[in-house]
């Protein structure tokens, strides 16, 4: 009983912990890079000119300002062998210590107590921080340093860079939790490491400028004045609220966390099943005892009270144990969650497991609440029945079978309302999850009825093979349906778990297939050359050299930059195709409003891809990736304003294309447009299409020769390599879902196990009779395994429709609503087969122990105890 309860609570708690910890780390990490900042000065995609900061300080006297350079670096650990390097991806945070809060505070004024809570990364806990001013020095979290095998004074290499950093100090993350994941360096070091000479990522501001407390309206006015002052003094500068930028990031991960939340709802359901089953089991198991107690004169109120009290006691212990186990489990899950976030969104390193009181209350509430709920009906029954029938289990089963039709109807109703919710809610992700929950819960209510219908086919000889093999006739099948209250719940738990597995499996399968197709479309060039240099740009000479090469039928030059827009920030991709440039976009258009004929470049959505490309190349227009289009509700013919080197400029959307890269929204524009509005002339990637008749190997060799003079700073990869890598990342991303699925199955497994144990216990005398009639222990064992196998099979079969329904919702509703990805729907048969086998195997494994226990049964004793 304890095990079941513990596991049930544990899984609920674990999933929540993983979710919350990663969320907290995420917000800490946001805090770490923005701190108490209220506003930020941002520029165009390239960052901002660092002289703006100088002007801000020396001419405008804006004191509460701090320059920030932010980027990602991979540090190489010193412990690993040369073969297997340990690298850790960190957020490089370039700061000016003198501009950090400690220098901003009034002399003698202690730093505000809530500084910690506000999450400022400051190095003030350590006097060695001043050494940060030395070029090439870094401060890391103690834990990060340990993992890298670095101690103060040792130098740490940066992957793919000629720079090394010297560790000068570490920060205890117990004191500053948000330092985890951060590599703090001086601005100068950051500029060099990231190759951002003369640039800053942004300038953080704390507005209003320090002054006496003022009424809110006055303060707001003052902030506005400040912004206006700054913006009017330095042309081209844009001051935005820090929160706005963060919101975009938060939104991005929110979707992921919602998915995790769905997992935790699932865990809740399965966990609740488990707890319910174990509690009812423990009461029913002792019906005889209760019957006897009633016979000897225990009053029914007393009996009821004692059952409930006992259940409560168990529930408390089980819940506590579950919380502990859940914590451990959650920490393990967290690693996986973090990895997914890193792959999908941005560098995040969570080492601290955290949970909220709410999570705790929720897990405990489910543990205790469901336990009590589960205990009440059997306790009531045990207490209310006349002494004799308490020992008769069949009387309860009789009642159960009577309510089966009602439960079935309720289930159908739930499924219906789930479908309704799905249908009326347009964009709400929550509604979609609610619908799934309804459908799953509803479906599990229909299981007793379905179970009966399925097994009643046995009388129509459907189950003949089973019957003839078991040498016990209809017995195995019949005893499953005979204990509906027991078996149906176990099967339902398994159905939910297996269908989730199938559903998510189908979703991932569909997703993967779509990604494969998309990669096929997007990676049309044969070879890609990218730079590993810090500024990512390819040498101009190289581009010229390549264009002189024969055997190349087409090139595709790409420049990628981050840019701000009037909506959320984007990843801007400027593209120039020359020669044979293959069509790489598959368009999925939905226009917000019809094309207006008087707009020069407004287009009909039925326009050909070629025409779109022509528009893209000749007008101020962009292509927008599907997720961005969905999230920002920006469609064809809409206008997107992008912050260019010449301020905000409008671009017309001429196409929405499939894209499965995550993170910031991807927006494509032609290189011509890019050069018109940006001064950046760099290229980071060249895609090459080889002529058909050419030997690819020779060309590669030739290219490699060409690249060799650039000292490994250039990387040439074939489209196959990129494809493989992309899919690897894809698979890694979904690793966590596999684990969660297995975990769910594990819990369902325990459910089956406890159900079988209950069955075995209840049927002791029946089995003794069978033994007396000449059933060998082996046969008995076989019998039970048959039964469990059957239950597994039934669960597997019942899980398939639910799994398919779930996957359909995941693919066509949830993914669209949360990521903005539409994808092809595809049911891999192997997933269905897997689910079926998984269900059977899970059930069979669960059957082993009860079967073993059963074969040890001494019939003489069992008979004597009648």
């Amino acid at each position: 009983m304890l095990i079941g309860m513990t596991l049930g609570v544990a899984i609920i708690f674990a999933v929540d912990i993983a979710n919350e910890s990663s969320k907290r780390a995420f917000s800490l990490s946001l805090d770490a890079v923005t701190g108490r900042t209220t506003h930020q000065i941002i520029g165009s995609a390239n960052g901002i000119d660092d002289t703006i900061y100088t002007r801000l300080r020396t001419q405008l006297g804006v004191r509460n300002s701090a320059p920030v350079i932010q980027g990602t670096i991979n540090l190489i650990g010193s412990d690993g062998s040369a073969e297997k390097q340990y690298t850790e991806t960190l957020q490089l945070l370039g700061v000016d210590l003198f501009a950090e809060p400690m220098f901003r505070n009034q002399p003698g004024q202690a730093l505000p107590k809530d500084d910690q809570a506000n999450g400022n990364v400051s190095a003030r806990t350590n006097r060695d921080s001043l050494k940060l001013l030395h070029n090439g020095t870094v401060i890391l979290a103690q834990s990060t340093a340990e993992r890298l095998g670095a101690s103060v004074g040792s130098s740490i290499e940066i992957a793919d860079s000629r720079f090394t950093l010297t560790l000068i100090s570490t920060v205890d993350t117990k004191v500053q939790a948000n330092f985890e994941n951060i590599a703090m360096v001086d601005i100068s070091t950051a500029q060099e490491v990231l190759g951002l000479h003369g640039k800053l990522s942004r300038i953080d501001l704390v507005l209003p400028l320090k002054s006496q407390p003022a009424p809110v309206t006055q303060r707001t006015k003052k902030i506005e004045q400040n912004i206006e002052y700054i913006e009017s003094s330095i042309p081209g500068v844009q001051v935005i609220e820090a929160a706005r930028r963060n919101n975009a990031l938060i939104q991005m991960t929110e979707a992921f966390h919602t998915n995790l939340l769905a997992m935790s709802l699932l865990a809740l359901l399965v966990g609740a099943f488990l707890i319910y089953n174990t509690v009812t089991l423990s009461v029913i198991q002792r019906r005889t005892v209760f019957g006897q107690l009633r016979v000897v004169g225990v009053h029914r109120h007393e009996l009821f009270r004692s059952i409930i009290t006992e259940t409560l006691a168990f529930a408390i212990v089980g819940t506590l144990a579950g919380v502990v186990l859940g914590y451990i489990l959650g920490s393990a899950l967290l690693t996986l969650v973090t990895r997914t976030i890193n792959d999908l969104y941005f560098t995040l390193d969570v080492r601290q497991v955290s949970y909220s009181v709410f999570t705790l209350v929720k897990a405990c509430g489910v543990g205790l609440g469901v336990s009590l709920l589960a205990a009440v009906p059997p306790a009531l029954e045990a207490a209310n029945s006349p002494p004799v029938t308490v020992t008769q289990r069949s009387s309860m089963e009789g009642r159960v079978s009577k309510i089966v039709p009602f439960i079935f109807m309720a289930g159908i109703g739930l499924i219906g309302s789930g479908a309704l919710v799905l249908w009326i809610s347009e964009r709400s992700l929550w509604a979609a999850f609610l619908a799934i929950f309804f459908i799953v819960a509803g479906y599990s209510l229909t299981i007793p009825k379905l179970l009966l219908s399925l097994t009643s086919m046995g009388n129509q000889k459907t189950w003949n093979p089973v019957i003839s093999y078991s040498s016990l006739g209809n017995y195995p099948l019949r005893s499953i349906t005979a204990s509906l209250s027991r078996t149906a719940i176990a099967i339902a738990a398994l159905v939910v778990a297996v269908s989730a597995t199938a559903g998510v499996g189908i979703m991932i399968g569909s997703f993967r297939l779509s990604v494969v197709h998309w990669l096929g479309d997007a990676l049309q060039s044969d070879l890609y050359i990218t730079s590993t240099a810090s500024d990512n740009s390819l040498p101009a000479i190289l581009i010229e050299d390549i264009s002189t090469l024969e055997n190349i039928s087409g090139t595709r030059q790409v420049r990628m930059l981050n840019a701000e827009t009037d909506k959320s920030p984007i990843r801007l991709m400027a593209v120039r195709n020359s020669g044979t440039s293959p069509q790489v976009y598959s368009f999925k258009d939905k226009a917000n409003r019809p094309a207006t004929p008087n707009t020069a470049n407004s287009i009909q959505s039925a326009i050909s891809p070629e025409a779109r490309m022509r528009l893209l190349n000749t007008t101020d227009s962009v292509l927008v990736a599907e997720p961005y289009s969905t999230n920002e509700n920006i469609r064809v013919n809409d206008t997107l304003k992008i912050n260019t080197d010449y301020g905000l400029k409008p671009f017309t959307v001429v196409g929405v294309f499939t894209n499965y890269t995550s993170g910031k929204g991807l927006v494509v524009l032609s290189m011509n447009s890019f050069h018109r509005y940006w001064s950046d002339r760099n290229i980071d990637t060249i895609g090459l299409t080889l002529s058909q008749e050419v030997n690819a190997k020779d060309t590669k060799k030739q290219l490699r020769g060409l690249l060799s003079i650039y000292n490994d700073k250039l990387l040439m990869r074939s489209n196959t390599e990129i494809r493989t890598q992309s899919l690897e990342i894809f698979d890694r991303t979904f690793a966590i879902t596999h684990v969660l699925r297995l975990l769910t199955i594990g819990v369902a497994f325990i459910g089956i196990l406890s159900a079988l144990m209950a069955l075995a216990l209840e049927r002791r005398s029946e089995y003794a009779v069978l033994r007396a009639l000449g059933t060998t222990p082996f046969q008995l064992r076989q019998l039970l395994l048959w039964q469990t196998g059957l239950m597994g099979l039934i669960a597997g079969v019942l899980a398939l429709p639910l799994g398919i329904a779930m996957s359909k919702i995941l693919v066509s509703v949830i993914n669209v609503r949360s990521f903005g990805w539409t994808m092809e729907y595809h049911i891999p048969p192997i997933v269905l087969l897997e689910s079926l086998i998984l269900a059977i195997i899970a059930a069979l494994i669960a059957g082993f122990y009860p079967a073993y226990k059963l074969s040890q049964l001494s019939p003489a004793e069992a008979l004597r105890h009648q």
Partner: protein
Amino acid sequence: MSDHFITLEQVSKSYNAGSTSHQVLGDLSLNVAKGEQVAILGHSGCGKSTLLNLISGIDYVDSGVISVANTNLTTLSEKERTLFRRQHIGFIFQSFNLIQTLTALENIQLPLQLNRYPATEIEARAKSMLTRVGLNGRDNAFPDQLSGGEQQRVAIARAMVHSPALVLADEHTGNLDADTGREMIELFSELAKSESQTVLIVTHSLAIAKTADRVLRFLDGKLIADDNLDATDLAW
């Protein structure tokens, strides 16, 4: 090799109840001839049921030898004993012990299925057995749809459907009213006689014991009398 069908030689059996050991049978020796109908008479807890369990191989002796139909049960393994029981012994339990989830017919079919009779024969034999115990037409009735007497008939049918050489009955009329009980006994001995089966009936009812060829009286695990009831007219 004895010409007795059942032979017990100095059989002892104890049960452990907590730390104390309670001897149920002590140094019991007896023989039963083939085709004999024997009643075992005694109070509750005198070791009657244990004797049945030992003879059927459901339980095993602490010491001594039991052989049935020239097979020494005490040297057989659990599985061998089970197989022996399946083939040669029919068992009627005190409280019928029908499998609740199976119909009357299916209950009767069980021993045949276990003995791997061909499907057609299972069907035929079980049906005819059902008819013989007077339950024609109740094939598909579940135990809880049958009266106590009817359940007992099914139990008898189940015990005898595969024509075992030995039938053991444990207080099988205990839960029935006197008339039905007598009816049962008559049916039972008639069936046994017709197939010349050896029968051991455990009972505490003199009336039932009277129908037997021979009565064994037990007191505290000891055989205190071995005769037919007419000869020893003791007041029980």
